């Protein structure tokens, strides 16, 4: 595989929006995807992520704004004129063609001779670990193999940007996890810019260099994977990615980057990321794995009492579901490192460190 031929390019969205009649699918958006990056757009269904993908691929013309790939304006070009290739959610392999014909279809469209096409297809099939499967029909392959054929078909046209529309959603969990690693490795090998659309945070977090989280046609946050998880910038991102315990209250004091918030079950402090002042409505977010038994902590702040409702063993860790005063649901992850979780019953005193809690301006949560 000639690596130089498949150098990725950057993608810039400049004030791009999309309206369908009265409905605005994508609010005006500025977004830059770096060349050679594995970039994910994460969001619930209907958030506009697929619309963005279709605008980048050229199937939709943005209502406003410009799309540039490698600095060239693509807005007026059709999908067959753009240096992009799209991997469809259902893969859209051509059922009547053999695997190699599928892979070489884009080359056929470019007028390459049959022998060259075949050679190129075999190279690409080798890249995606499907050596020798070229003469089969797509229906004779397994789900994961079809996946790889689709990727090979996309790469055959030597795109600068490969767009992937939830291609793993039809696979079962084990295969999905395996394919994540494969896609990541193919991306590394080829250096092509990948834009990956998914509603599955696990996929986004494990594969991506950077993630954009979208909600309601708006990009809520663009950040490196770990920042999305550890430093969400909005309540939506905080709750959409991973699990959260959410405490609502009013800020009493927001000085020195620490916010003190009064809630129904007591006073808590956490990092004041939004620079809130006294009297602001706030939400405190604490990850389940950061919530712990008060007895194991030396701190005296951020204490709460809650009643154990259920303990679910997940294998390596245990989900402890609790309920605090005012019917507030809480969840705590405990590592399965001994027998201590088995004795958790009745009313417990819980706590968390102020540095593990994030205080944000009250807003829309995911799944509401």
């Amino acid at each position, binding site marked *: 595989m000639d690596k130089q031929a498949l150098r990725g390019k950057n993608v810039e969205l400049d004030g791009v929006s999309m309206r369908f009649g009265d409905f605005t699918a994508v609010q005006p958006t500025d977004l830059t995807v770096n060349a050679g990056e594995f970039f994910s757009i994460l969001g619930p269904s209907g958030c506009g992520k697929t619309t963005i993908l279709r605008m980048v*691929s*050229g*199937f939709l013309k943005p209502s406003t704004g410009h799309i540039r790939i490698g600095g060239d304006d693509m807005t007026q070009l*059709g*999908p*067959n*004129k753009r240096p*992009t*290739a*799209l991997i*469809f*959610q*259902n893969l*859209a392999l*051509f*059922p*009547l*063609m053999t695997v190699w014909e599928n892979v070489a*279809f*884009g080359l*056929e*469209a*470019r007028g390459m001779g049959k022998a060259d096409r075949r050679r190129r297809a075999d190279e690409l099939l080798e890249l995606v670990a499907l050596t020798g499967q070229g003469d089969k029909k797509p229906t004779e392959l397994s789900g994961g193999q079809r996946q790889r054929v689709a990727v090979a*078909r*996309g790469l*055959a*046209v030597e795109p600068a940007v490969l767009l992937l529309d939830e291609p793993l959603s039809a696979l079962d969990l084990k295969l999905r996890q395996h394919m994540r690693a494969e896609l990541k490795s193919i991306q590394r090998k080829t250096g092509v810019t990948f834009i990956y659309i998914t509603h599955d945070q696990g996929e986004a977090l494990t594969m991506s260099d950077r993630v954009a989280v979208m909600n309601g046609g708006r990009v809520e946050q663009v950040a490196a994977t770990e920042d999305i998880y550890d430093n969400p910038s909005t309540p939506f991102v905080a709750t959409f990615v991973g699990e959260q315990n959410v405490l609502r209250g009013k800020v009493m004091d927001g000085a020195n980057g620490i916010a003190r918030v009064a809630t129904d079950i007591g006073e808590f402090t956490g990092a004041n990321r939004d620079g809130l002042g006294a009297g602001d409505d706030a939400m405190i977010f604490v990850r389940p794995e950061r919530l712990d038994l008060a007895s194991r902590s030396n701190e005296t702040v951020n204490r709460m009492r809650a009643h154990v409702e259920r303990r679910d063993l997940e294998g390596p860790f245990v989900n402890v579901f609790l309920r605090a005063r005012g019917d507030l649901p809480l969840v705590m992850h405990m590592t399965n490192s001994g027998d201590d979780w088995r004795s958790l019953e009745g009313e417990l005193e819980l706590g968390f460190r102020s540095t593990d809690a994030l205080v944000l301006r009250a807003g829309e949560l995911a799944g509401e």
Partner: protein
Amino acid sequence: MHSLYRSYGAVLASLFLGLVALWLVALIALPQLNMIERAFVYESRGGAAIQSQVDIDRIYQRIYTIEYDIDALRDQAEGEVAIGVAPGAKIGEDNTAGVGIAVPSATVSSGTIEEQIAALETEAGGLKAQLVDLEVEETRLLEEKEAASGYSLRNFTTMSSLHLRIFGMTLVYSFCVTLICFVVCYPIAYTVAQTANRERAAMLMLGLLIPYAINELLRIFAWTMILANEGMLNTTLDALGLIDMAQGEPIRWLASNGAVFCVMVYAYILFMVFPIYNTIETLDRNQIEASKDLGASLIRTHLRVVLPYAKPGIAVGSIMTFMLAAGSIAVPGLVGPGLHPDWFSQVIYRNFFEAGNWNIGSAYSLALLAACTGFILVNMLVFRVGIRDIAK
């Protein structure tokens, strides 16, 4: 079979099966077998034998007339004696001066009654002698006719070169109609099938269906009204100043291949649209987009993705359209009224209902059926589809 008995009970199930068997045997198998048998039975119509029978009948008739005249003359002779009517009345004038019979002039216009009677008796004697010869000849001819009839391929081999030409041209024309129909229908079927808006697709389909609520003959007549010399098309052209009807320059649209093809395409469009529509409708839109995304032009997308996928539908549509076109009698009959080259179906029709020669008609029908079956097989071979694909 068992599930049928379980679902409906023995009585009802037996009734169903009995009726189906009756339908298969009485309405399909027997008539078809009868037709096939007729096709292979050559029925000599024995032209010469029948002619001699007609001649013999005429002579007998003449002899009876003569005998009647003689009786009448004898009565007259007796009456003349009694009443004294003047002689010389003309009698026995008739029209038996048949073609090709050696009968002397039958008019007796002069002479005494006795002379007239004598002349008539002479004539009758001559005729009777002729009759003996003719009857021998008739027997021989009938035997010949019997010998010529029976199982043979003569119904097929005696097809005149004109009929053979019509047969061949009908197949060529039907193929043209099928081809035109496909060219017209494919874009329609594709557009409707790939319309994202289901409601709009339903409206389009309804628009295609509504004309079919009208009787086929009326639909064809509607076209003759458009295409007639004084029809709407010529009137419109006249109004536009392109032709001058007053100068007697109407364009003769009717009775041309163009008109017949045009009306047939209109008449059978649904049979092509629906099968293609049904297959393309199940084509994943993403495949078309994938093809475009990979850089394929519109034409390549159709050639490589849509058309191969639609093959079973195209095969079914072509088969139906071809069969309907080849068997059509109303369209060539009405649109090309006597001026357009015959369609083979018209030749078959005339054999059955005008010439009354069912055996030749059956043979011609069978030939057409064989040609159509051949077309189906070739079609399946070309499109590489099996019976099962077509059934889908």
